[in-house]
């Protein structure tokens, strides 16, 4: 209860601060000036929401945005996701699979840890062993458990040979997965972390501030900045105020309202990173009422995507076509764009025998826009004779509550490759299968896609999976929203096309202060 109060309260505070700020700030025309040519030196201060006094610097425990930002400053993964979610080599110089896609040979770059030791094959194996420890629940565990570690080995210091438990053509996705960082073998204490990343650890106060200094020996070229400071600021209004007041240079995760308020003022830069969050609905296909395919299709046709992007995302995003990952590798671009068709939806509702039916529709404040989307869609559904009863659940436990407890829920997903979307959500064995989509023939398509070395064949199999989802799936991905970042006008080098959580996002080794 207290928690909900706090949320509402801070939400109110945020709105208030923003509107007063805008009134006082006035409205200078024109955008922010550019930051000019790259320039070395200086300390960049970046603000993120944090995890409180319980925060640690163990990169294998990474799950919040701030933890990712700190981890990527200090550590590296073998690979990371590019702007289209395809894996890009990082500490791995290259990867070569065997013909059966079960043996992968990874050649490491010549990189060193901050204490001067080289990054070796043994460090990679030890890091993965730590992540997948039995009984543990580290974030990257499920992605990396495809590796048969006892059978994998270090061929020499710069070559690892991984044995997989099954053929996995997109194995580099696992190397890029969140939290799969490489640490020096035997590290257990992260109070003075040593990594191979672009910045070296200087100091850390949990829940408060983190300071790191330029690593002149970074394999990808030394950073331009001398120092990087990451501070914790949970309240969005405070992040905006601190940015306006010159206390910080970069603020992660601004609200749409703040973006609109300050975009044209010229005081700060507002960056909208596209394809960062996907918004949708999850219908459980294995139980009434959405076991009726007609009713699922009715949902496809009653949804007004443009309206949702305009109102829920305040225009800061693109409409979706009901399948996940527009703009990502293997996305089925050829499918015709669906738009609202109330007559068709009405007749489908009738054919499903669902006229006037009341269906519970779960939502919560767990993520921005979930609630607003649920309310807007329930209005749209009313026009075709469906009564969606919006239920506001607890935000702290929402994802777990809707896992089995709901037939229809407001849903959201961060950026991930199609491979991860399918394997985590759409296979019989998936652990977060929120639409209860369990089809052996669909599983077969995925397994076939991961068992072929032929990229075109894989793309074709992905297309077939997506066609099934498009025609009869349980997800309605109605839109994708931008991730909004604020920066001081003197900050240059921010990649404005990188979805949140990819390689180029919060990549402070490429940023400079003019």
């Amino acid at each position, binding site marked *: 209860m207290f928690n909900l109060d706090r949320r509402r309260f801070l939400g109110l505070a945020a709105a208030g601060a923003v509107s007063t700020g805008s009134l006082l700030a006035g409205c200078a025309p024109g955008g922010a000036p550019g930051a000019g040519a790259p320039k070395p030196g200086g300390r960049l201060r970046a603000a993120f929401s944090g995890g*409180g*006094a319980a925060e640690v610097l163990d990169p294998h425990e990474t799950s919040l945005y701030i933890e990712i930002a700190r981890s990527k400053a200090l550590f590296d993964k073998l690979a990371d996701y590019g702007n289209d979610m395809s894996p890009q080599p990082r500490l791995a110089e290259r990867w070569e699979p065997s013909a059966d896609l079960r043996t992968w040979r990874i050649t490491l770059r010549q990189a060193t840890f901050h204490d001067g030791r080289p990054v070796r094959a043994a460090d990679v194996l030890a890091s993965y062993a730590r992540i997948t420890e039995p009984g543990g629940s580290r974030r990257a565990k*499920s992605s990396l458990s495809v590796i048969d570690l006892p059978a994998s080995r270090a061929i020499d210091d710069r070559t690892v040979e991984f044995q997989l438990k099954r053929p996995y053509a997109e194995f580099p996705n696992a190397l890029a997965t969140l939290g799969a960082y490489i640490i020096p073998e035997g590290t257990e204490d992260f109070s003075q972390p040593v990594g191979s990343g672009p910045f070296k650890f200087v100091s850390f106060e949990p829940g408060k501030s983190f300071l790191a200094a330029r690593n002149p020996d970074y394999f990808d070229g030394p950073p331009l900045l001398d120092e990087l400071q990451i501070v914790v600021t949970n309240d969005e209004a405070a992040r905006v*105020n601190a940015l306006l007041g010159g206390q910080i240079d970069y603020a992660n995760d601004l609200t749409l309202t703040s973006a609109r308020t300050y975009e044209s003022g010229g005081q700060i830069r507002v960056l909208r990173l596209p394809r960062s969050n996907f918004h949708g609905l999850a219908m459980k296909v294995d139980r009434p009422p959405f076991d009726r395919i007609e009713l699922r299709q009715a949902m496809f046709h009653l949804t007004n995507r443009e309206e949702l992007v305009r109102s829920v995302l305040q225009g800061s995003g693109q409409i979706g076509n009901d399948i996940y990952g527009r703009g990502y590798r293997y996305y089925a671009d050829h499918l015709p764009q669906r738009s609202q068709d109330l007559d068709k939806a009405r007749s489908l509702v009738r054919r499903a025998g669902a006229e006037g039916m009341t269906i519970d529709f779960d939502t919560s404040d767990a993520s921005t826009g979930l609630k607003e989307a649920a309310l807007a869609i329930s209005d749209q559904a009313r026009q075709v004779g469906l009564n969606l009863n919006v239920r506001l659940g607890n935000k702290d436990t929402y994802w777990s509550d809707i896992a089995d407890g709901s037939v229809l829920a407001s849903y959201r997903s961060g950026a991930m490759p199609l491979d991860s979307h399918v394997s985590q959500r759409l296979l019989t064995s998936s652990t977060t299968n929120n639409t209860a989509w369990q089809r052996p023939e669909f599983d077969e398509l995925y397994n076939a896609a991961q068992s072929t070395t032929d990229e075109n064949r894989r793309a074709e199999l992905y297309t077939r999976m997506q066609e099934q989802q498009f025609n009869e799936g349980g997800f309605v991905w109605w839109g994708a929203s931008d991730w909004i970042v604020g920066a001081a006008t003197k900050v240059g080098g921010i990649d404005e096309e990188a979805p949140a959580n990819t390689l180029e996002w919060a990549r402070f080794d490429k940023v400079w202060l003019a």
Partner: protein
Amino acid sequence: MIGYLVRRLLLGAVQVLLVVVGVFLLTEALPGDAAVTIAGDKPDPAVIAGLRAELGLDRPMWQRFAEWLGSALQGDLGTSLVGPRPVAEMIGTAAGPTLLLAGLALALLVPLSTGLGVLAARHEGSRLDRLVTSTTLGLYAAPEFAMAILLVAVFAVQLGWFPPTAIGGSLSSNPALLALPILVLLLRPICSLSRLVRAGMIDAQRSPFVQHARRLGLSPTRIRFAHALPNAAAPAVQQLARTADWLIGGVIVVEAIFVIPGLGTSLLEAVSARDLPVVQGLALVFATTTVLVNLGADLAARALSPTSEVGR
């Protein structure tokens, strides 16, 4: 006196125990637990069950509480559920900024509100008195979060006189960071306290003993400060104790708005994460502080005005 103190301390211990039990039950009553919040948007049932076993959350509620109480009585507040740090250490770190804020606010509150109250009472009915009473009433009605937002917008973002938040600085080494938070914390208590002091002073100045003192020819200043004020202060001291309790709550708001990582921020985070040992530890600290502050205030009121019935 000793008997009274012992009675009050025993009663206080019972009160603290009741608070801790209540907080435990309320936190338990919240939906979900630490395992669910750690799993977040990837609620794999196997992982959640594993976490529960690892954190000991699969044991009965009464058993966990009994264990917590047993260790707490021996001075061990346990370890956070979501991180590796001991609760006592987390509270110790977070207590610094909160104590600094609350202590400084209290230290400024007493002279400022007494001064304002005495001043208004001395000129009872004058234009100055009316100005003070109406301003304090108006400010008292403004909730502190609204005040904070307004002050930040005007004095930090627009005029740039003070930093808008306490990000990246140390409170003790950079006093400018404290200006707005302290102002927000002080505004309402100053208003309520100065009004109490004013009312008490006016009453006292009309009372027979002050009139008697006047007839004896004592100087007005001496009468005001040595005779009237101590009597007028008794209700204000009670209010001051309530203010000290209130400061703990106000600090939560101020910490959130100005990004100060103190006890209030820790409490919010711990409740969100369902981090029971931390919530319990903080409840213990807050309850004990409240009991002790009230006891202290009652003792002070007795000393100031021995004839009153305060605190019996």
